[in-house]
Every structure is written in C-alpha cells, then in structure tokens.
C-alpha cells in the first residue's frame, strides 16, 4: 500500500485516492477549432514514460481536492506533490538507495560504545568456548552427561557405530514408555503440562512447549508422510518454517490442510495425519473468527532472535513506538535452539514487555513487505489453544503495520546438500537437530552422522553428543576444518576431513550412511546411523528484504546471497545480513535499533548486551552436489521431488535462468517456497551450466513468506460485512413487507414485493398494472443528489450537460445528459433550479460519487475561476415516487396547501409544501410516462410520509413497487438506463436523444466529439425497440442480433445486441430494447436473435412502445 502525501491532509493510504491520468493536459481553449486529428490527440494520447511522470490524483476519501503528483513509474515512488494550478517543480529529490547495513567501521564504533559486545574473548572453564556464550550451560561432555534412558542398550557393533534402535518402520523406537526419545532434563518444555494428541490414528503424549514435530520425535516418530510425486517416505527435516517434508493435515478441532508439523504448537486433543504431499480443504465452514488491525510504529523489528532482541532493547526506553514481531511463542530465535544466552533473552523480554511503548507480538509471522514500509503480519492468537480457544477472540489476526523504520533480524536458514538418497527419514538439518535437543529436550535419533561444509554443524554434533546421542562421525568436505574439528575429536567424535556422504540406506528410516573422500568413489566407509545431520551452509532469510525492493549480492566468503541495498527505510541485522558470529549479531542488532530511532529523532540508551566469546572460524566450503552412483536420486527440492537430474533435464532443454528452471521443474514452487532448496537449486544449475552461482542469482521472493490462510486474509470481510451495504430510511418497511432486494452499487433497493407466493413475473406484472392503471409508489431515495451553489452555477452546468441549464427558471426542473469528452453518455438525471445561484442535480444511483468527483475535477483543475461549490446531499433527502393516474388524488388528499391541478402544478415544476404534515419538496417528474410526483422529505420523517401515502392510497389500491417494475415502465417508454442501455460507447444521438444536445452552446464537455467523423457514421448503433414475432418469446439480455434466418459460416456479422428485455402488462407481450447498427433506419425490419439453438425472429420498432403521444403524463 503506497502512502500518497495529500498536499493538504498529509500522507494517507493510496486506497483513499483516485487516479486522474496525466497532469498538465489542459482542456483546449476552443475545441471546435481543432481538427479531428488534434482533438483525437487530446482525447486519446497520453505519455507513458519510464521514470518521473506528472499525474492527477484526488483525495477522494479525504478532502476531495485534486492535486498533482510526480510518480516514478519504474519504482512507483511518489517523488513530489503539488496543488492543482501550481507549476510542476523543476527539481525534486529522488529517494536514496541505502545499504542493507552501513559500513562496518560505523557499526564497530556503535557496538563498542554501546555494548562491549566486541570485547575480547572471555574464556570460561578449562575448555575453549564452543560458540556458546556464558549463558550456555557447560562445555562439551558435561551437557547432559547422563545418557538418556533407552539409549544405553546398543554397544558398538561390528560396523562402525551402533545398531539403530529403530524397528525400521520409521515409526518409532517401540519403547514401552511414552516419549522414549525425550531427554530427562533438557529443553524449555513444560513437563508439568502433559498433552495428549493423535497422529495417524495413534495416541501419543507430549508437553506444552512442544511442536507437533518435536512431540512426534519424542515418541520416536520421524516419518510423517510420503512425497508428492514419487511417494517416497519422508521425515521431519527441520525445526521451523522452512520444513519441506513434514507437512500434515490437522483433522481436529478444525480441519486445516498443509501445515508444517514443525510450526504447529502442540495442544491437548490435537488430531493430525501425515500427508502424501497434498492436503484436503475443509468442507464445513470455518466457525472461527479472523480479523485485521492497523498498527503504526517508529520501529518495527522483525525477528526476536539475538539481533532482533538487541535492536528492540536499544529502542525500548527511547519513548519511540516499537513493535517486535516473532513467529515463535517466545522470543529468543536461534538462541532457543542453541541454548545460549537464555537468561539474557528472558531479562530482555521482561523489560520489553514492561516498556509502555513496546509491543511484542509473539506467534506473529511478518509475511509481506510492501511500499512505504507497509508490512503485513499474521498473528496466531488462539490456534495453540485447540478446543479451548475462546469463540469471541479471533483465531488469527492480520497486522497491517506502517513503520517509520524497519530492522529485519530474520535470521538464516540452513541449506541442504544434494547427495544420493538424501531424502530418507532421519536426514535432518544439523541446527534443527540441535534445536530439538536444546529447546524441546528431544533426541531425534540415537546414532548420528554429521555431514557438513562449514563450522556450524560441529556445535550441533557436540550438543547432541552431550545429550547422549552417539555421534559416529563428522564428515567435513573441507580438508582442514581447523579448531572445531579438534574440539569434536576431544569429545571423542571421529572427524573425517575432506570427505562427503555419498549415499544412504534404510527403508523407510535411515539405517546407514556411506562416506567417501570428497570427489572420489573409492575408500568408502559405512556407518550405521538412524540420523544424518546435514549442513550445506546458511542462507540469510532475505525474503522480506527482497520483497521490499532490496537487491541481494553474492557473498563469496559465505557462499550465499546477502542483502545489499534497498530504497526503503530498512536495515538488516544478524544472520539475515550474513553475520553468524553471535557477538557480531548482537552488536549489529543493537546498532541497527539505535540508528533507526536516532534517525527518527529519539535518543537511545545503550542496551545491556551480554559478553560473548568469539569462536574459532574456518571459512565454509561452497558445495552443492556430491557425485553419486548412477541412478540414485539427489534431491534438491524435497517438497516437489525435484532432483539434480530434473534440473539437468531443464538445462539440457535450454533453460539458462533459474526463473526458467524453476518453472520447468517446479523447484521452489511448493508451499515451503524453496526455503531450504532455493539457493541449492541455483548452485546446482550454476554447476550444470558451468557458470558461477553469483552470476545466476536467485529466483524472486514474493509475499507471503509463509502460507497465510484465506480466512485470515479475509478477516471480517465476509458474509454481510464483505462489502458495505447502503440502505434508505425506509429499508425496514421494505423488509417487513416482503420485498426482495436488488444490489445497485452498494445500495439494497427493493426489487419487487411478491405477495402470496407470487413469482417475480406475476408480481412485476401486478406492480406495473397498478402504476399504469391506479397508483403505485417507490422508494427513490438512492438517486444521487448534489447541491451546486454559487454565482457561476449556471455557467458550470451548461459546460457539464449537453443541454442548457442556465435558462432553467427557478421553480422548474430539466432533464439533462452528461457526456465524457469523447462524446459518450456518462450520466443522466434531472436538474432542479432551487434559486438564482443554486441547483440540485440528481444522478443515477450508482454514479453519484463518480459525478461529484467529475464535477470537482473540472472545477478544480480546468475552471478554478468559476465560483461554484458542489456538495453531496444524497442522504439529506428521502425521495418517494408516487406514480399513476390516481396519484394526484392521493397527493391532493395529503397536501391541502398544494394546488395539484395540472395548470397550477405543471409537468417539470417543483413546489414546497407539506405532505401529511411533513415539509416536502414535490417535483412533477415522471420516469414512467404516467402522471407522477417525486416527494422529497427529511429521511428522519420518511417513514411517516410513506405510511401516510400507503394509508391515503389504500382506497385506490396503492401498490409499492420495486426496481424491476420501474425498469419495465421506463423501457415501455424508451427511456434508457445509463449503464444498462449504454456502455460508454453510446452518444446521446445514438439513443435518439438529439433533442437533449444543445446546438446553441459554444461548448460543453463532449460537444467537439459529436462532430467527429466517427460519431456521425450512419451505421452507428442506435437504441431501438425489439418485438419478438411470438409475443410470448423472451429475449435474454445480451442476446446478439443477426440479419439472416440462417447463420452463415463464422465470423457471423453482428448487428447489435439486446440491452433490456421485459414482459409488459400494458403491451400484453414481451419486448426489448437493443443497440442495433443503423437501427433507426431498420424500423419495421425483421432481424434474428440466436437464443440457444434457435434463431428467434424479431421486428425492429421505435423504442417508445407505450403511449408514444405522451397523453398520460398529465393524468
């Protein structure tokens, strides 16, 4: 949502504005002097530049002023605005491109001053620190010193490693106790709150704080389904939103398809099933509530990991409004998974929760980043409560956040590697396994092999080992992994440097892992393992940054794509910027938060940041694929079953861009949107093409970051609240009297009033007969009404209407037509002259707002010298149409002071009087050809008037009628309805209304176009009547008309189409109105209307089929 700065009201959402096309295209001084070509140039030709473009806009929902804006058409940025009549500014500032993070020097200074985070390494304990800061429990070997129960049985067997305890079903360890894979002490789960849930028909137990995935793992269940295309068993692969495999269907309490089990918080009574790659939509309506709220802040921090928390902490006490949004139930981000700095997390969270101007949004995923720092987030408010969710609280809420500044601290996703059979249940991202151990107290397996290209997986290996998992080997593609390898060895773990995993076995669950020197096929070794941890490096979560319009660049050292520059006020901190070392992450976050608020004029205190040791570092190795034996699939996108071979087929077919290979193979198009596979796919394609991945880039990141349900996006915009419903002051009477309603614009208008089981046809014939033979009345309050006031009101209306309004006498009424500059009919209605300099203009029901906008546009941009003001008074008046030969008697009986005789109160006059004691303006106008009045009163008294008319008309059988009868009555008289019988290509002359087009006026809008060669063509479509030769045959509206009784071979020349079609009580037959080429010259001619398989013969007639001499008008 763009913010458009109204020159008066300031920045507002673009939804408040209407676009008016190119600015500075003045209406020609004397259109009649222009050639057709010059006039056509004015009408139809506009510039279409790339770059700055001056346009007209109006603040339609606000001050109704038209103004000019210079918008860059390539970026959509509004560069400047200025008021109508002002010159376009010669210069204006373009928005600057900012780096995703400022220069490092700057940050170092900030960090040093602010936090001491860059302090020297602090060594605690005898062991060197392990990338875990002082907050972490203890060095390797001490964490979880006791092996968990159930893991002790298997001693090393013949092969390296141990016999896995799995029963090879992939469905669990088969232990007798519940949760055999639960660590006795670890994790942040609430062991005092056990929860029961069902998966694939089996009941299990977990704890509050579990995800469905962690609870399944605790019960030894790792396989959650099969893959979509190949039907291969698939298991839990990650611990977060990036999950490609463990996509489940929630069955109860409410069915929901395709949720990653890694993101479903466990609740009591949860029932879920695994999916074969595809879920099922619920068939019952969702009973939950969903809503949306708008929020504004000085700083939005996305992600409450170390960087995000540090950023929010820096901003917390400044007085600025800060929102911190995180998708997890509790802040901490990656620290929850690594187990580091948890005291600092808790302290900081408590301080943020207590800060008056800070809002911490938990369980809230920011999923879209749009123009002008407008971000959308979805908060899962009651999903985690299961059946306990209160009915009156929305289940999910969409936050529409407008932030002055944004800090993206969205972290990074671990990348997989493409090796043979890398998809078996038991293959898991390394950091995810670490998170299960530290956060959920779950061992994802008993015997693990770790396969890595970088340092980060060592910490996972050490934590798993400490928790009692037998880590059989760390397989590192790097020849010299450095100090981390030493630490692993010290912990008793074998490290195979310069090695890679070349294959796996197990059905369904992993049972063994084959390893060979990287790039070689000999020297293979096999390890028995039920868990294979994989780390192919880290991808910054740059999705939101990219959506914001930010550019990414390839970082050679990290071997991945990182945020580079952006035009929005956003900064990226921590893992999302490619910083993976905790001290740097914290410093970046704090500095980013402080900078953002300083830019907004706030003073920030330095937050208290924990001291963090700097771990040893060895550069990662860029690896995407591992050579394998022929025929073994190497999966790139697990969710779409896309392999290296599939990508090879794409490049073999000539694809040279990742956007093309994506569409060819569907890699990255599943509901995980390729979070674990995107960069891997780029890397594979780069290898296949023999180019560098930096030249290839990534596919485009589009919202939403994670799937968002339609229900959440709809919010409360459904059912009766989907679109505003407009009603008149008489609405309840209509409802009470059985009216069916027709939507006209947003209005609910009575359509017809069926009585005693009447169908529509019978009811409408009855209502029509009452209007033609007795008396009937209708609620006409919905017609648009505009008060036009000022000394130049007459001049102005003469320019707007095709006919003359300035000569109208006070007390009289005139029908008028408005055209667009192209000469086509735009609106019609009556004009009442209230006073010398005051008119009341009526518009069609649906066009009221458009006509007022239209008037303001001309007044404000073309004719500002005219002293005229236009004001909507549509709802100031309620209008009742009283129609029929007996209407005079009814009115007379209620308006004793009104002389109702024809000579006293002639057609097209208006009178002020009282009707039923109510002050009223009565107009003698007719849209039916019958004697008729329109009675206008205050809507506060409309019901009293209506009921008085109903009572006074009872002796004459007064009948309420709706829009359908109105349409029939007017069509019998050939009165067109703008928008039904016209479609923007019809001139007043086409409608047979040349009489409404002034020949005297020097100019009016549309006049010049009426002299164009095209509008003078004899074969233009004219409005005519159509009489089916069988008087009972009904022509559907839209039916085409052809010349012959036999259809020629296509293309069949079309002569026109039916615009309105009815059954007439007065004519005793069906009839229609139609736009027909040269129609007025065809009156009497027979044409054919294809209806279904038949060609219905019809006769062209005058559009005025009833009372052509107008004898009924005066009663």
């Amino acid at each position, binding site marked *: *949502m763009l913010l458009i700065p109204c020159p*008066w*009201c*300031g920045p*507002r959402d673009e*939804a*408040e504005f209407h676009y008016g096309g190119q600015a500075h295209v003045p209406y020609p001084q004397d259109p009649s002097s222009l050639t057709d070509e010059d006039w056509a140039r004015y009408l139809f030709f506009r510039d279409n530049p790339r770059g700055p473009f001056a346009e007209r806009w109006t603040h339609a*929902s*606000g*001050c*109704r*002023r038209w103004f000019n804006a210079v918008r860059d058409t390539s970026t959509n940025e509004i560069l400047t605005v200025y008021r109508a009549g002002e010159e376009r500014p010669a210069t204006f500032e373009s928005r600057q491109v900012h780096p995703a993070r400022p220069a490092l020097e700057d940050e170092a200074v900030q960090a040093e001053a602010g936090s001491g985070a860059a302090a020297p390494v602090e060594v605690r304990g005898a062991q060197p620190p392990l990338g875990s800061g002082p907050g972490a429990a203890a060095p390797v070997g001490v964490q979880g010193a006791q092996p968990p129960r159930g893991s002790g049985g298997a001693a090393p067997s013949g092969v390296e490693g141990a016999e896995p305890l799995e029963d090879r079903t992939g469905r669990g360890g088969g232990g007798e106790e519940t949760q055999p894979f639960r660590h006795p002490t670890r994790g942040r789960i609430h062991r005092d709150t056990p929860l029961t849930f069902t998966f694939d028909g089996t009941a299990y137990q977990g704890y509050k704080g579990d995800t469905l995935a962690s609870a399944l793992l605790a019960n030894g269940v790792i396989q959650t389904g099969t893959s979509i295309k190949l039907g291969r068993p698939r298991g839990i692969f990650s611990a977060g939103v990036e999950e490609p495999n463990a996509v489940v269907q929630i069955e109860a309490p409410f069915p929901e398809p395709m949720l990653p089990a890694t993101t479903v918080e466990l609740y009591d009574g949860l029932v879920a099933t695994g999916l074969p790659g595809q879920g099922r939509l619920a068939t019952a309506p969702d009973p939950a*509530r969903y*809503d*949306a*709220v*708008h929020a*504004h802040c000085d700083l939005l921090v996305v992600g409450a990991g170390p960087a995000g928390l540090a950023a929010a902490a820096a901003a917390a006490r400044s007085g600025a*409004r800060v929102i911190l949004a995180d998708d997890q139930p509790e802040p901490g981000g990656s620290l929850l998974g690594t187990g580091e700095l948890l005291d600092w997390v808790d302290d900081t969270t408590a301080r943020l929760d207590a800060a008056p101007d800070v809002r911490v949004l938990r369980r809230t995923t920011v999923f879209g980043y749009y123009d002008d720092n407008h971000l959308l987030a979805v908060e899962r408010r009651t999903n985690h409560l299961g059946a306990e969710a*209160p*009915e*009156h609280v*929305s289940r999910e809420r969409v936050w*529409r956040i*407008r932030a002055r500044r944004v800090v993206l601290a969205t972290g990074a996703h671990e990348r997989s590697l493409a090796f043979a059979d890398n998809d078996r249940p038991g293959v898991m991202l390394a950091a995810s396994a670490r998170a299960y151990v530290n956060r959920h107290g779950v061992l994802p397996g008993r015997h693990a092999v770790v396969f890595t290209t970088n340092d980060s997986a060592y910490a996972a290996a050490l934590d798993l080992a400490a928790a009692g998992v037998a880590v059989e080997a760390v397989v590192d593609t790097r020849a010299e992994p450095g100090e981390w390898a030493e630490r692993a060895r010290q912990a008793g773990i074998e490290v195979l440097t310069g090695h890679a995993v070349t294959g796996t076995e197990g059905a369904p669950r992993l049972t063994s892992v084959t390893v060979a020197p990287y790039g070689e096929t000999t020297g293979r070794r096999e390890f028995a393992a039920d868990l294979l941890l994989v780390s192919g490096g880290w991808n910054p979560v740059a999705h939101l940054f990219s959506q914001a319009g930010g550019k990414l660049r390839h970082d050679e050292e990290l071997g991945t794509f990182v945020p580079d520059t952006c035009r929005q006020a956003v900064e990226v901190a921590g893992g999302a910027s490619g910083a993976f070392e905790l001290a740097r992450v914290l410093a970046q976050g704090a500095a980013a938060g402080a900078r953002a608020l300083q830019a907004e004029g706030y003073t920030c205190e330095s937050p208290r940041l924990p001291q963090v040791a700097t771990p040893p570092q060895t550069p990662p190795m860029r690896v995407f694929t591992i050579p394998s034996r022929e025929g073994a699939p190497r999966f790139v996108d697990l969710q779409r079953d896309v392999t290296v071979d599939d990508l090879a087929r794409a490049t073999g077919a000539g694809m040279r861009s990742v956007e093309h290979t994506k569409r060819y193979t569907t890699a990255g198009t599943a509901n995980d949107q390729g979070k674990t596979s995107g960069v891997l796919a780029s890397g594979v394609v780069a290898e296949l093409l023999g180019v560098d991945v930096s030249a290839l880039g990534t596919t485009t990141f589009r919202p939403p970051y994670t799937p968002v349900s339609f229900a959440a996006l709809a919010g*409360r915009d459904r059912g*009766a*609240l989907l*679109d*505003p*419903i*407009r*009603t*008149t*002051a008489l*609405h*309840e009477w209509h409802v009470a009297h059985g009216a069916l309603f027709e939507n006209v614009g947003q209005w609910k208008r009575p359509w017809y009033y069926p009585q005693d089981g009447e169908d529509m046809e019978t009811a409408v014939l009855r209502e029509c007969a009452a209007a033609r033979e007795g008396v009937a009345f209708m609620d006409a309050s*919905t017609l648009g009404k505009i*008060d036009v*006031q*000022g*000394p130049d009101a007459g001049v102005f209306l003469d320019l707007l209407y095709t006919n003359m309004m300035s000569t109208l006498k006070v007390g009289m009424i005139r029908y008028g037509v408005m055209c667009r500059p192209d000469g086509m009919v735009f609106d019609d209605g009556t004009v009442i002259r209230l006073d010398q300099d005051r008119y009341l203009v009526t518009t069609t029901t649906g066009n009221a707002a458009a006509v007022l906008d239209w008037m303001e546009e001309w007044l404000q941009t073309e004719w500002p010298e005219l*002293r005229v*003001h236009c*004001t*909507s*008074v*549509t*709802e*100031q008046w309620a209008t009742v149409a009283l129609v029929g030969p007996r209407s005079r008697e009814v009115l007379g009986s209620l308006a004793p002071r009104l002389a109702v005789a024809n000579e006293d109160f002639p057609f097209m006059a208006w009178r002020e009087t009282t009707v039923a*004691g*109510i*002050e009223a303006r009565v107009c003698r106008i007719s849209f039916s050809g019958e004697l008729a009045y329109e009675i206008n*009163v*205050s*809507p*506060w*008294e*409309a019901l*009293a008037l209506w009921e008085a008319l109903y009572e006074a008309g009872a002796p004459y059988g007064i009948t309420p009628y709706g829009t359908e009868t109105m349409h029939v009555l007017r069509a019998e008289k050939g009165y067109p309805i703008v928008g039904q019988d016209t479609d923007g290509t019809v001139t007043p002359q086409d409608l047979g209304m040349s009489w409404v087009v002034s020949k005297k006026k020097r100019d009016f809008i549309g006049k010049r176009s009426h002299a164009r060669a095209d509008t003078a063509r004899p074969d233009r479509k004219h409005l005519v009547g159509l009489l089916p030769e069988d008087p009972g045959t009904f022509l559907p509206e839209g039916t085409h008309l052809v010349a012959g009784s036999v259809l020629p071979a296509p293309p069949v020349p079309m002569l026109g189409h039916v615009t309105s079609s009815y059954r007439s009580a007065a004519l005793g037959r069906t009839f229609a109105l139609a736009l027909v080429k040269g129609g007025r010259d065809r009156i009497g001619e027979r044409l054919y209307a294809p209806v279904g398989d038949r060609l219905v013969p019809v006769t062209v007639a005058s559009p005025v089929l009833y009372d052509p001499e107008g004898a009924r008008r005066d009663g």
Partner: protein
Amino acid sequence: MADTAVTTPLRSPLSPAAGRLAAATRASGGAVRLAELPFLTQLNVRLDPKGAAADAVGLALGLQLPVEPGAVVRAGELTALWLGPDEWLVVGPPGGRRDLESRIREAAGDEPVSVIDVSAQRTTLLVAGPRARDLLAHGCSLDLHPRVFGPGRCAQTNLARTQVVLVARDDPRAGFWVLVRASFAGHLTDWLLDAAVEWTG
C-alpha cells in the same frame, strides 16, 4: 424542515440499533462505549478562507474557521471541522440549523458563500472507552495515537471501507465522534459491533 414538524416523531438512521449499541456497551464492562448521537445540526460551509466572508462568518459563529488541515475549533455549542481548504462542517446541537444557516448567510452578505444543511446526510456515532482506539484500528488505517491524532484533530478517511469524518474529542478518554453517511450507518454499526466482540463477547 423538521424543526417545525413537531407532530411527527423523528427517526434517526440508527434508532433501530440503539438497543444493540447499549447492550454492547454494557457487556464490555466499560471497555468500549458505543452510542448514536442523533439529529445533530450539521452545516456544510464553503467559502474562500482569504476572502472577506471568512472573518464575517467567524464573527457570526463566534469561532474562527480553522485553516490548518484536519483541525477542529470549538466555541460554546458549536464545533467547526476542517473538511478541505475551503470547506467546513459546522456541528451544533439538534434543532438549530435554520437559525445557524441564516446567521451564516447574513454574515456572508454578497460574498459567494455556500451553506448547505447536511444534518441528515450523516449521523454521529460516539466511540469511546479505553478500547476505542483499538476498536477503530480494526478498520481505519490512520494513526490515531494521541500524539498524532489528539484533541483538536479531525480527519476524513475510511473506516470499515466506509467514508467517515473522525473527530478526536477534547479529552482523549471521551473518545471519538464518527460521522458517517446515513445510508452506511447500519453497515458501520454492524461492523463496529462485530469488531468489538473481543470486549463484549
């Protein structure tokens, strides 16, 4: 018009909803207060703020028509809302529009000033209580924080996809006036009651 029609009881656009609004107010335990303020006098005044009429009309009304966008000026029973650079809505208690209209017209003399009675065009909803701002935030994209939209501020904007005039009342605890077109008032009421369910449910 209705000023003299004492025989006919007046029906406001939201009279059918009065019971529901009161019930929601009670059920919320004071978190939100919702009520229609019917029949307020509302005059749309258009004039050149730099012209002679501006001062004269200001004198006649006893208040200076605000020229700052989105400003509200109050004096006695009258409130003048800025609607546009040459447009104001003068709001007063029910029943005074004839008198008010003639006062303005007389003060304007021969100047091209437009005065239009729009008292029935919009009705007024009171949205108050500690949760008033949160309630409006469900459907209004404006920043209604007191620092931004405090006493003395008004805005024409969209609420629940309906055009409204929002007025921050003098005391932040007094909440907001929401002036809404009469035909949309029923929809807006349904919407507000639905959005308030969190506090009334």
